[in-house]
């Protein structure tokens, strides 16, 4: 059970049950949609940018515990940060969930380190981040984890 309890940590279950920054922004500057065809998850991310800073962020969608909690925790960690900081965070987060990087500097996002023991779930943990990246790149298209 230890790998399972590493995956479904209390923080993750909490964010799954009560996702933060859930909803839509009235006046979003950027948005993108992300699909995970494997499990049918679909979520959207909306941003408000000011002087290179993510002033506000919301997400919507339904998904598994890992993808919803990841989206929720992501919005908390990038809100108030610069676009470059947000991108750098994903650059650290991605190797960690793949089991190839350290948890250093990831703060609360550390709780996703258990995902690396479940390779098929990596896409659940990164869906929100890929969607955020698409929104920041301003491509305005749907990204897919497949």
């Amino acid at each position, binding site marked *: 059970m230890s790998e399972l309890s590493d995956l*479904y940590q209390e923080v993750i279950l909490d964010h799954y*049950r009560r996702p933060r920054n859930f909803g839509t922004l009235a006046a979003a500057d950027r948005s993108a949609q992300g699909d995970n065809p494997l*499990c049918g998850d679909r979520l959207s991310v909306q941003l408000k940018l000011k002087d290179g800073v993510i002033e506000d962020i919301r997400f919507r969608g339904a998904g598994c515990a890992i993808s919803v909690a990841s989206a929720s925790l992501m919005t908390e960690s990038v809100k108030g940060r610069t676009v470059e900081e947000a991108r750098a965070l994903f650059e650290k987060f991605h190797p960690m969930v793949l089991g190839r990087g350290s948890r250093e500097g990831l703060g609360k996002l550390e709780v996703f380190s258990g995902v690396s023991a479940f390779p098929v779930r990596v896409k659940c943990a990164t869906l929100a981040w890929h969607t955020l990246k698409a929104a920041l790149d301003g491509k305005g298209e749907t990204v897919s984890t497949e």
Partner: protein
Amino acid sequence: MTPPPDLSRFRADFPILGTAVHGRPLVYLDNAATTQKPRKVLEAVREFYETFNSNIHRGVHHLSERATRAYEAARDRVRRHLNASDPREIVFVRGTTEAINLVARSFVRPRLRPGDEILITLLEHHSNIVPWQMLREETGAVLRAAPVDGRGDLDLAELERRLTPRTRILSVVHVSNVLGTVNPVRRLVEMAHARGIPVLVDGAQAAAHRPIDVRALGCDFYAFSGHKVYGPTGIGVLYGKAEHLESMPPWQGGGDMILSVSLEKTTFHRSPHKFEAGTPHIAGAVGLGAALDYLADTVGLGAIEAHERDLLGYARERLRQVEGLRLVGAPAEQAGALSFVMEGLHPHDVGTILDREGIAIRTGHHCAQPLMEHLGLPATARASFGLYNTREEVDALAAGLRKVREVFRP
């Protein structure tokens, strides 16, 4: 009522059932995706490669003659399995998907004019949707789908209304891979034939669970996959009425499907060879023949049907007792698969936690997104049963689902 037959002694025939997953005995409930292989199938494939591996239909030497005989014997084994009248009606393909594509390309496409209609149903797997969409794009034909009711049964009256003078084919699944719905194929064929409309049946989820008699069903085409009937992957079957197959043009060109070739003109072989261009999956055909022998002669298809009916009924009863679990669909007749969702839980999380208990189920949209959309569900969890599954394994599933609840308990 006679008690269901006890098939548990056949578990020993399947080497993989003795393995452990995450330190737990494997409970394999993903038979709708693929079935495990009995030793007889593995041995038949091994015997082919070890003692008479050779190419077929060409060689004059001993091994080629043996391989050809084994390949054609497998074809006749399939014919008997489907109760077809002639081995020329049995075409070996890669699987159900390829069989449907063959019919779409070679039988339906030449008959399609813009505005003609192709009728499928909402219960279809993507493999019985996408080939028709591709034809629609090429020909300007119209693709229509018959709806299902709240229980997961086809709305037959509505289906009948959608059989019009412009319908060129009815292509329908025998057993739904999501809900386990068994469609009344014989009735559907009668409805279609009364209007002169040919019928293709996708039997991928049916052939492992019950005897199939294409002459009793009356269908024009019937398709199934070897790997879902305890045989190898990469081999499948298209049954077609001889009159259709003879009239259809080949769909792939190459060796083995010709009588003579000059640079100016090629004379094609008769059916089934004209549809089997290139070296076929000989070992796969041999393995499929062995699988059908095993199902019919060693275990018995009637016994399998009775055993699985009991198991499915037991599973419905046990799963209903799991807190917050809802069974999806309650078709009038059900075979093979059982879908469910759990309140507040995503099927993917359910699948991950069960996997750590050694229990293999499928989660997701099951390659049937139009049906999932109709059900208003992005995904379900699906348990699907085979001849070797037991009531104890259903109990293990129910216990595993209680564990899922524990993990997510607030």
